[in-house]
């Protein structure tokens, strides 16, 4: 019966937060843009008659037109097609790297905040050390070691993001474990596992949700940055960062080439940023902003 009451309260809090989010126009715009991006990434092959790597040298450097809405590149490939397929790369890297680092980070953060002691000490010091590296530099160094591939990009971004998730969830776990309801759960003999999953974890979810959107935005930027620098995805993969870099070399004759891939990155990051801001306001209305 107790757990029924608890879950009911949880649901209503979630509904409250969602209704606050729905009243935030900017955040709603973010959700809609993100939905469109996901849709276009999934259905990319059906939205365009061209292939992302199909070359046609007779169509090199075509400016935007009705046939090629975003023009073509130095190999005569349709840029709109490449931007749509590039969304697949960005979103896949984001979902996998953020998913893995959120799960790992939450496990580490919740256990270290809940148990404390030597485990917490080890985790906190390890996080201090990983935070001592500028994020993008750490990702670059990891890519230098692992070598250029899309899997390695996900690993590098995942490693950089994990300590952030650990810190966020550890902080919530620390403040939750001293609450009365946790003491009550301990008093009636709840196991560590039960307390962590049923009582600590739900209280970590609000900051976790905000962090997921922030980390996702960073993952999109980092993937593009690594590919831009020639350390991420390999050509001819249609990655936005790679396309921007290729476009930079030809922008004197074909300025549309870097512009559209850069816009795609910017719009994606923008939608995730406003969603993150909206979530923060919806989940923690006391935080002034």
């Amino acid at each position: 019966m107790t757990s029924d009451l608890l879950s009911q309260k949880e649901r209503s809090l979630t509904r409250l937060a969602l209704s606050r989010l729905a009243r935030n126009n900017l955040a709603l715009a973010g959700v809609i843009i993100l939905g469109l991006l996901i849709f276009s990434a999934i259905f990319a092959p059906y939205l365009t008659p061209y292939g992302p790597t199909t070359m046609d040298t007779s169509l090199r450097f075509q400016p935007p037109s009705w046939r090629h809405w975003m023009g073509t590149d130095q190999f005569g490939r349709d840029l709109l097609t490449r931007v749509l397929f590039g969304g697949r790369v960005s979103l896949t890297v984001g979902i996998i790297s953020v998913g893995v680092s959120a799960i790992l980070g939450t496990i580490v953060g919740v256990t270290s905040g809940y148990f404390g002691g030597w485990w917490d000490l080890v985790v906190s010091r390890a996080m201090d050390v990983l935070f001592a590296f500028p994020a993008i530099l750490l990702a670059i160094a990891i890519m230098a070691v692992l070598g250029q591939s899309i899997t390695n990009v996900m690993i590098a971004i995942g490693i950089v993001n994990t300590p952030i998730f650990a810190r966020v969830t550890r902080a919530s776990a620390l403040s939750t474990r001293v609450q009365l309801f946790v003491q009550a759960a301990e008093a009636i003999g709840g196991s560590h596992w039960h307390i962590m999953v049923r009582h600590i974890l739900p209280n970590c979810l609000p900051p976790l949700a905000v962090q997921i959107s922030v980390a996702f935005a960073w993952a999109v930027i980092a993937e593009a940055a690594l590919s831009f620098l020639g350390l991420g995805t390999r050509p001819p993969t249609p990655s936005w960062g790679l396309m921007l870099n290729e476009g930079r070399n030809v922008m004197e004759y074909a300025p549309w080439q870097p512009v559209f891939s850069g816009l795609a990155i910017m719009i994606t990051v923008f939608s995730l940023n406003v969603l993150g801001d909206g979530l923060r306001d919806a989940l923690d209305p006391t935080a002034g902003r």
Partner: protein
Amino acid sequence: MARYTVYRLLLLVPVLVGISVVVFLLIHLIPGDVVDVLLGIQTSPEAAAALRRIYGLDQPIHIQFASWASSLLRGDLGLSLRSGQPVSYILGSRLVVTAELTSLGLLLACLIGIPFGVTAAFRQNTTTDYVATSAALVGLSMPDFWTGTLLVLLLSIKARWLPPTGYVPFSADPTENLRLMVMPALTLAGGSASYIMRMTRSAVLEVLSQDYIRTAYAKGLPTHRVLYLHAFRNALVPVMTVVGQQMAYLLGGVVVVESIFGVPGLGRTALESIYYRDYPVVMGVVLFVACAYVVINLLVDLLCALVDVRIREQIVSLRQ
């Protein structure tokens, strides 16, 4: 303050040790080792083994770490595989360039971010506020390599005002140096200015709702005095913290920006060294930048404690 400083300095030691362990492990995780890079693949196993003995690579890993760490403490970061120069010499010669670029970037970011943040907070929910906050939101969503590309496209290729890439030392030609630094510094400043603006805005908003601000108005002080002497001063700690974070963040951003604009600083050196598999230089830069990042963060915290007595008292008393 002295106790707080000593306490923070002591906390620095394990972090620095940790950084060196991470960098050492990164070097050792690289498939193949220095010998493979130096000799290539077409080499006799005997020659490779002999070279490994010279470099001490046949020793167990903890002994290798000990000798690496002890030479590190003497400032010896090894030799570049490409040029044979000491890594510490390469770092020293490139550091000035990166320091100039990050300082200019941070200066621009503060000059843009702080006044806009204060104004937006003071004129909350007006058009000025909406324009400034929207601009910051867009600025946050523009990765530096995209801002840099757009600037080159607009200012160099279309308007032909500035050369797209290049670098001249400040000592050789100060005007040309600054002219070439405009775009890299602006690129670097873009995202940071947005962060600083948002943080300044929310910090000032927080302060503006306090009673002593109403008192300041009530006793007839002019608005600009209330804003800058009362409101902004009390919002200084969060603003300083975010400026410090941004300075550290810019140390990461320079890698990308230097490579776009052909600025021969630490970041571009690191990238070039990755392409040439010159790992001692790569790890030298990573190690150096991470240490600089930690030290900068420490200095910012110390500055904040100097400004706000509550911070140092709180942390020192926590320890007792």
